[in-house]
């Protein structure tokens, strides 16, 4: 590392400080608000003097079943991820390891589907969901979520699959392994990091989804958390319970933050595999 002049180091640390504060401050402020209640809410200092958990209790005891929404979000996201990974793994093997005609076109189509505006299928999806008898059911959201998780799961897994050593597969074929055994017994142990990356990104996507969740679910008990948070209302129409909303925001964000901090490397490699190599 070459020696940097003093002013350059100072600038670097100053810039870092600004970036860190801008990134973290809004969340800290939300957390501090969630600990305030009454007139303390209107005090804009970052330090919550009272520090009581009343807003958090209100969240779970309120009119809205927030605990149920958390459960719904969790189940829907996990199912979406499991489904996408299972379907994605075999498809990615075909796309990443086998040469055949039409592969390029298929990959470009998948990329197109993962980037196209979901609202374009809203009415058709509405009809499909009703026809499947899944309207107003949290579990039904797995269907529209597959629309955006599956293509990008396949896409990212394909880029990882392509990088596995060819000798490994040849040796397995020599030993008489079929393609299914190659995927699940030879490649799977090597693909764990890729599966974690892809799974996390799909989980985050499903956990945060709003448009379909808002449109296809009407009952409070079947809602997912993003919609539940957007609908938290006060005792009267004019009084917005900011403390409770911020408490809900913190509760919803914490699991994601933990995932991101623990799996930082995996998430970054998933994101860049999808874009930079693509």
């Amino acid at each position, binding site marked *: 590392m070459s020696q940097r002049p003093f002013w350059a180091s100072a600038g670097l640390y100053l810039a870092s400080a600004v970036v860190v504060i801008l990134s973290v401050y809004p969340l800290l402020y939300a957390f501090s608000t969630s600990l305030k209640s009454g007139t303390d809410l209107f005090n804009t200092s970052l330090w919550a003097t009272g520090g009581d958990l009343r807003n958090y209790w209100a969240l779970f005891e309120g009119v809205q079943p927030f605990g149920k929404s958390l459960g719904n979000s969790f189940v829907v996201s996990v199912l979406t991820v499991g489904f996408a990974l299972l379907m994605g793994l075999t498809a990615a093997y075909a796309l990443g390891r086998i040469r055949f005609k039409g592969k390029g076109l298929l990959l470009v189509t998948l990329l197109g589907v993962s980037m196209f505006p979901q*609202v374009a299928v809203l009415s058709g999806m509405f009809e499909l969901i009703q026809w499947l008898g899944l309207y107003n059911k949290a579990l039904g959201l797995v269907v529209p979520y597959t629309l955006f998780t599956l293509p990008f799961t396949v896409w990212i897994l394909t880029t990882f699959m392509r990088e596995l050593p060819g000798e490994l597969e040849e040796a397995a074929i020599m030993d008489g392994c079929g393609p299914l055994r190659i995927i699940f017994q030879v490649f799977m142990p090597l693909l764990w990091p890729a599966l974690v990356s892809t799974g996390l990104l799909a989980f985050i996507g499903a956990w945060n989804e709003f448009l379909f969740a808002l449109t296809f679910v009407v009952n409070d008990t079947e809602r997912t958390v993003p919609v539940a948070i957007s609908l938290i209302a006060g005792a009267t129409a004019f009084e917005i319970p900011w403390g409770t909303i911020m408490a809900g925001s913190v509760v919803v964000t914490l699991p994601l933050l933990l995932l991101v901090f623990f799996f930082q490397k995996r998430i970054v490699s998933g994101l*860049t595999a999808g874009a930079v190599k693509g």
Partner: protein
Amino acid sequence: MHNRTRTAWLFLTPMIVLMLVVAVWPLARSIWFGFTDTNINDIAAGQWVGLENYIGEYGLFFNPNDDEGFWAGDWGVSIRNTFFFAVVSVVLETCTGLGVALLLNQEFKGRAFVRTAVLVPWAIPTIVSAKMWGWMLNDQFGVINDLLLGAGLISQKIAWTAEPAYALWSVVLVDVWKTTPFMALLILAALQTVPRDCYEAARVDGVHPLRVFWRITLPLIRQPLMVAVVFRLLDALRVFDLIYVLTSNNSSTISMSGFVRREMVEYGNMGFGSAASTSLFLIILLTALLFLRAARVKFSEDAR
């Protein structure tokens, strides 16, 4: 080898069937609904009306009732809002993302900490960031008005998310805050592929750092940078949740996706809404194709 090809298609079948069911079929039905007068409460009763939803008396385009012109109607406004939002926020977040990436590409103590902190806005769900910023930008009790008043930059409190002059800019601000990490990470990954000797050589020759950036760094990362911009542009053009939650779904800041959902779900005009969603689809597709062409982005997958 013939056998391998058959395996490939066999393995692809479940995925392809699934995509036909959840993507192709709903898209086809949505396009079809656009030519009908279907109401959301009784889908089966919809009648074929041809191009009425597009160019009829109450249609999306050439509507004779828009006496102030196309761009003043809600649909026109939603198109303008969407493009304004997409272009401004993508340009801004490319700049901020580039800045943060260049910072993180330096070696200094505490870099790992900064990189983790930068990820925070990305990890926060869009709805939560909309609510968080909605609270900070609150006209009465928001911390931003408080800070700006205290610094003497504004003379009275401003309703950032409600006043039409500021509302869309507030949306842009929150979006830039939330997506800068994504841009920064992708650009950083690209920066790290630039060989060190390029910089070394330039340094030995005494080339000014800014010149190094323009002449060496930028051309070398152009391709991945453009891919990141395309991702963000397409994402920004379908914006719905941020605007819906931050500005309470009012008609001055409505986006194209918001317009579609309002017509379809709140007003129940599924046919008209579907015509709007089909137009939206075509507009975004066209924009994407034009952009890809102009930026000469190649997805290397084509070649393989």
